[in-house]
């Protein structure tokens, strides 16, 4: 059937040409660098886990020792691979001994470069097998237990205590949620490491640790079998430890990751280079692990006006798409973010929401869009809030959205109570069911308000993408192109973690995943 909106395909192609130019520029700026977090991720993928006696994660310990001597430019894989060859120890034992200062990687005899690289490359091949297994397992389970029709009902748990989270996640899944996201503790994104073990305290969320991932995954798998319905698990692949979390998620079979190319820069003031390098590697891992990423354009609208800045959301989606595809992510893995954040007091605001939602639906037709609920204009009137969430759910089913982050009637008050979540699930199920095929039934009037609005936003998008492609993305970000937030190109947290590669730098997983994902350039 004919699409609801008649969009200018030439203009859309033009936008993609601009983003391709933008991406070339970024890749060229980052390809000669690695980061401490990328190198820690290499170790984690090889199997290094655990903490030293000070509770510092071993991947940090090992990498820091090399970096301290400015030897990280060669990549951790050479030093650690050489260590394995020289000591004949298994990965974890070697890491432990390094942590205990019983072994100093830099004081061992050094094998010839290629020999080490071949050796570590083989090891890498071995170590990604479990991840392949996870992908298979997910596919099988999804065949056996359907993940449900789209839009998928996505709810968060955020008690700070993983065991409390488990209770609420199970309850939500039983009530009909398709996706459970465990919100992270507020400050975690600025930690330059990943906390260890199960955790029971956090603010506004629960720490992302591999153990917590495992605990929640097991709990949900149990529900999946009981309910005969696949429940997807989400966490946050962002912040200073972005690629490590990607690795952890791949190992524990998470299904989705919040993972944006620019969120860290804009909302956490993380250094640009650091962010772009980390997002690139982390996305390769997510791509390989069959994870759907969620981008964070919705956040722009929490600080900018959803009507005036609508085009920045679309522009950012184009950029996230291009950067994502270049890391081997398939279109089906791009959960591009947008949000229902227009002031509802504005006459015809619902029409503008429909225009935006339908527009992105058509432009990114193969991607599972992540649609965020009204938050900014929700107030303490929980009845009004519940109604707004209903309008949001209707907009979603009217425009075939994919990942529906459910709004809460208590959004303005507290993180969701058990009953709030239950009501929001009931709300979405009610609206989706009673308007299931509405989208097939309606068409938008040619040259109507909705059509015109979409055209306008698309035009404005092409304009700023051109501007960005001329200036370069980093420069544009420094001028506050997104969310009214300006970040200096050189500034931001984690800059010290960026390391220039030497010509004999090697990262076995980078090579391996490029092959697995058959990525050509970049």
């Amino acid at each position: 059937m004919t699409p609801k909106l008649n969009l200018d395909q030439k203009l859309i192609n033009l936008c993609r040409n601009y983003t391709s130019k933008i991406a070339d520029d970024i890749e060229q700026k980052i390809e000669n660098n690695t980061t401490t977090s990328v190198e820690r991720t290499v170790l984690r993928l090889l199997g290094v886990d655990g903490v030293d006696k000070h509770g510092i994660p071993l991947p940090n310990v090992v990498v820091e020792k090399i970096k301290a001597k400015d030897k990280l430019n060669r990549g951790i894989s050479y030093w650690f691979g050489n260590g394995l060859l020289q000591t004949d120890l298994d990965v974890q034992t070697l890491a432990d001994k390094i942590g205990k200062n019983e072994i100093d990687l830099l004081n061992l005899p050094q094998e010839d470069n290629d020999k080490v690289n071949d050796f570590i490359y083989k090891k890498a091949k071995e170590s990604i097998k479990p991840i392949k297994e996870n992908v298979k397992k997910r596919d099988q389970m999804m065949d056996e237990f359907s993940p449900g029709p789209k839009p998928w009902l996505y709810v968060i748990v955020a008690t700070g205590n993983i065991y409390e989270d488990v209770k609420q996640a199970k309850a939500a899944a039983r009530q009909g949620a398709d996706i459970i996201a465990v919100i992270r503790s507020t400050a975690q994104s600025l930690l330059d490491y990943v906390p260890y073990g199960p955790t029971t305290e956090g603010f506004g969320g629960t720490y992302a640790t591999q153990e917590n991932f495992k605990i929640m995954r097991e709990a949900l798998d149990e529900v999946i079998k009981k309910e005969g319905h696949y429940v997807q698990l989400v966490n946050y692949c962002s912040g200073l430890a972005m690629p490590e979390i990607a690795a952890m998620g791949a190992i524990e079979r998470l299904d989705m990751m919040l993972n944006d190319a620019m969120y860290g820069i804009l909302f956490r003031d993380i250094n640009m280079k650091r962010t772009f390098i980390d997002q690139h590697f982390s996305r390769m891992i997510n791509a390989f692990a069959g994870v759907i990423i969620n981008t964070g354009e919705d956040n722009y609208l929490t600080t900018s006006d959803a009507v005036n800045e609508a085009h920045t959301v679309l522009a950012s989606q184009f950029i996230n798409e291009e950067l994502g595809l270049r890391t081997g992510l398939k279109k089906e893995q791009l959960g591009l973010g947008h949000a229902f954040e227009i002031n509802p007091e504005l006459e015809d605001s619902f029409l503008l929401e429909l225009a935006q939602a339908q527009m992105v639906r058509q432009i990114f037709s193969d991607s599972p869009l992540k649609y965020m609920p009204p938050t900014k204009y929700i107030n303490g009137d929980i009845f009004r809030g519940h109604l707004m969430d209903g309008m949001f759910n209707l907009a979603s089913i009217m425009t075939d959205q994919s990942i529906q982050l459910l709004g809460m009637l208590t959004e303005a008050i507290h993180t969701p109570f058990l009953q709030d979540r239950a009501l929001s699930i009931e709300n979405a199920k009610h609206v989706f069911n009673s308007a299931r095929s509405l989208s097939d039934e309606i068409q938008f009037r040619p040259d109507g308000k909705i059509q015109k609005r979409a055209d306008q936003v698309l035009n404005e998008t092409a304009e700023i993408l051109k501007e960005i492609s001329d200036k370069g993305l980093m420069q544009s970000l420094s001028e506050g192109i997104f969310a009214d937030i300006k970040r200096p190109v050189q500034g931001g947290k984690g800059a010290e973690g960026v390391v220039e590669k030497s010509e004999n730098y090697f990262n076995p997983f980078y090579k391996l995943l490029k092959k697995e994902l058959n990525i050509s350039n970049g």
Partner: protein
Amino acid sequence: MDKNNLIKAYGDTYNDGKIQLSFTLPIQKGLEAEEAARKYCLQLGLKEVEVVHMRDLSEGFTFFVVYAISNVVVDKSKISVAKIDTEEMSYYEINDYIKDKIKRKLTVVGACTGTDAHTVGLDAILNMKGYAGEYGLERYPQYNTFNLGSQVPNEALIKKAVEVDADAVLISQVVTQKDIHIKNLTEFVEILEAEGLRDNYILVLGGPRISHELALELGFDAGFGSGTKPNQVASYIAQKVFENNFKDGDINE
């Protein structure tokens, strides 16, 4: 006293005691109104009262939404509710049960009494088409069913019950404003008792605000609330008739 039996309200953590309230006070919107709402909740014994929303309803009224903590504890082990003890049977089981064990058809008379004109609920139980996939009593070969419909005076209902020598009398009450149903139902039972007819019938009460508990209080034998299915009522009546008339199986009529 087992700790695990003591339960508190649950927001997002065990025993956090979080609850939600909304109410209207006859006071002009403003800071004083907000404080009045807070005080109101404190007097209810609530803690950490958060007036999260306040709206002017004009004419000197203000509406409030509140979240607060209550330390109220309920002991699960101390809760007992009267329940209908007969077991639920299916349409076919019930008819067989009556044929085999009672060996005669049963007669029921039903009505929406007083000024109540809400017949849908009673019809759901009595009419052929029934409710929620279950046939109504009219459809049961083993039941003679008389549905007198809406706004039936108590006297008229009793007259009919006598006339057809009913086994059970069914009353539906939906309108409960100003406890109009209580008045009406009490009057009904009083008349029956005055005329010494009380024990001739199984008295069944139903309606969205009716509980078995309440029915017993009012002198009925059973009460059925929202979502009742016809077969539940049919099972109950059949088994009760059997209990009442046939002591250990031997027919004595």
